[in-house]
């Protein structure tokens, strides 16, 4: 089981063999409501940890997406173009957003499951 880490801006990340998968949390998708559109980076673009990498648009809001990790984008979830609702239906599975090639460790400021749960319960 790969451990999932969270950012304070409600993105999640898992890392397997040097590739990080990034999505938004179940809490975030529930708060946004029906996702209707995503603006995601192009493949091969480079992201900085903590920087905005796209926009997620729901029927009631448009929010920036912040990357928990830095690196080169190796894959973008193409399915979301036609089926953005996958983010609502399966935020930790089919609703992933991008895969990023990362070197080294995850940034230290990411939250584990328990800490993230505490964050969402506090808000």
């Amino acid at each position, binding site marked *: 089981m790969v451990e999932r880490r969270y950012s304070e801006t409600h993105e999640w990340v898992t890392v397997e063999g040097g590739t990080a998968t990034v999505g938004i949390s179940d809490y975030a998708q529930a708060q946004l409501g029906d996702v*209707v*559109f995503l603006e995601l980076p192009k493949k091969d673009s480079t992201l900085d940890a903590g920087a905005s990498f796209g926009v997620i*648009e729901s029927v*009631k809001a*448009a929010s920036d997406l912040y990357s928990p990790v830095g690196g080169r984008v190796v894959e973008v979830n193409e399915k979301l173009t036609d089926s953005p609702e996958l983010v609502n239906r399966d935020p930790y599975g089919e609703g992933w957003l991008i895969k990023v090639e990362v070197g080294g460790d995850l940034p230290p400021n990411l939250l584990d499951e328990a800490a993230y749960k505490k964050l969402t319960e506090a808000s």
Partner: protein
Amino acid sequence: MPYLVYSDEDRAQMLAALGLESVEGLLGDIPPQLRLQRLALNDGLSEQETMDHVRGLAARSRVYPDRLSFRGGGVYRRFIPAAVAAVTSKPEFYTAYTPYQLAASQGTMQAIFEYQTPIAELTAMEVANASLYDGATAVAEGAMMAVVQTGREEVVAAPHLHPEYLEVLRCYGDGRGFRVRVGTSPDQHSAALVVQQPNFLGLLEEMPALTRAAHDAGALMVACVDPISLGLLAPPGQYGADIAVGEGQQLGLAPSFGGPHLGFIACRQELVRRLPGRLVGEARDGGGRRGYVLTLTAREQHIRREKATSNICTNHSLCALAASVYLTYLGPDGLRQVAEISFARAHDLAARLARRPGFELAFPERAFLNEFPIRVPDAGAVLGRLEERGILGGLRAGRWYPDLEDVLVFCCTELNDPAALDELEAALR
């Protein structure tokens, strides 16, 4: 409840909260020379005396009959069938501020939908919005779509894009942070190539080649088109343009001192999320009945906020309705006829004028539709002679282009009947 909602006391309170002494103080940001200090009107005139005075002033304006006006330059006199006003003057349309409560406004929603449909068909694009202010803002909005879509910061405008459209484009660019360059060669920094067809001088541009140049550079092609011309010319969708915009005044609206007019904008389906303004879609309710809704609203400014393409929230519904009635009433054949008659008259006039000594077509190798630039011996003298005979001659191109000092741009529509052409020719003899 008081009929007058603000008492002097209310006003004083509001001004005090703002730290101002008078309502005038609210206008402090407007340079004094731009503000009307006082109307040149005597005090104490009765309503009747005031009307007499104002009518007297109005009578000093020279109004040329439509058939004897040969000036276009972005605003055109055309025959407007009575059917247009018969529909637009209905109080349900005419008096209401565009109501967007769907349940109460199905008629309005349908009217907008019935406008979007022919605009999309005419431009051969997949989707058109509920309208914009005018051709100039439509060009600027189209350019902004391209800037947001490509993430690039330069817009290339072809020479002889309407000079006032270019000014508005630059003005939007200042606020939005994109540069405007005049030229025809977009590069890797360009978000869009904007080309007007026919251009401001009436000449036809090589749209397919220019579209390829835009796409080769990874830029979008924004075609600013004359809607009547699409009765004859290939529509933007056919040569691969990404966004089609234009001024819709010719579709059933009077020139009326330059507005209110109608901006139209249409695009390919992939760009719909970038399309600014209102968009009406057809839907089915729970019982399977047809209904009309505002759709894809999340892309708009009130939800997407600063990430939206544009902060435009409104449209010109009544003008759009006029266009919708005009296009429906004429149909594709009627539109083609209007374009053909205008084409024939303008070419007849061009041939007749070019025969006059000292007159020659400014760009004899270039094709045109119903507006053309012609070099004359002395533009001021030619216009003066025509004015004496009650004829409004062509537009002086030198006002914008120093190299076209003695060039007049003449325009014909279906309103310039053959006898009017004879009169113009006789006046120059």
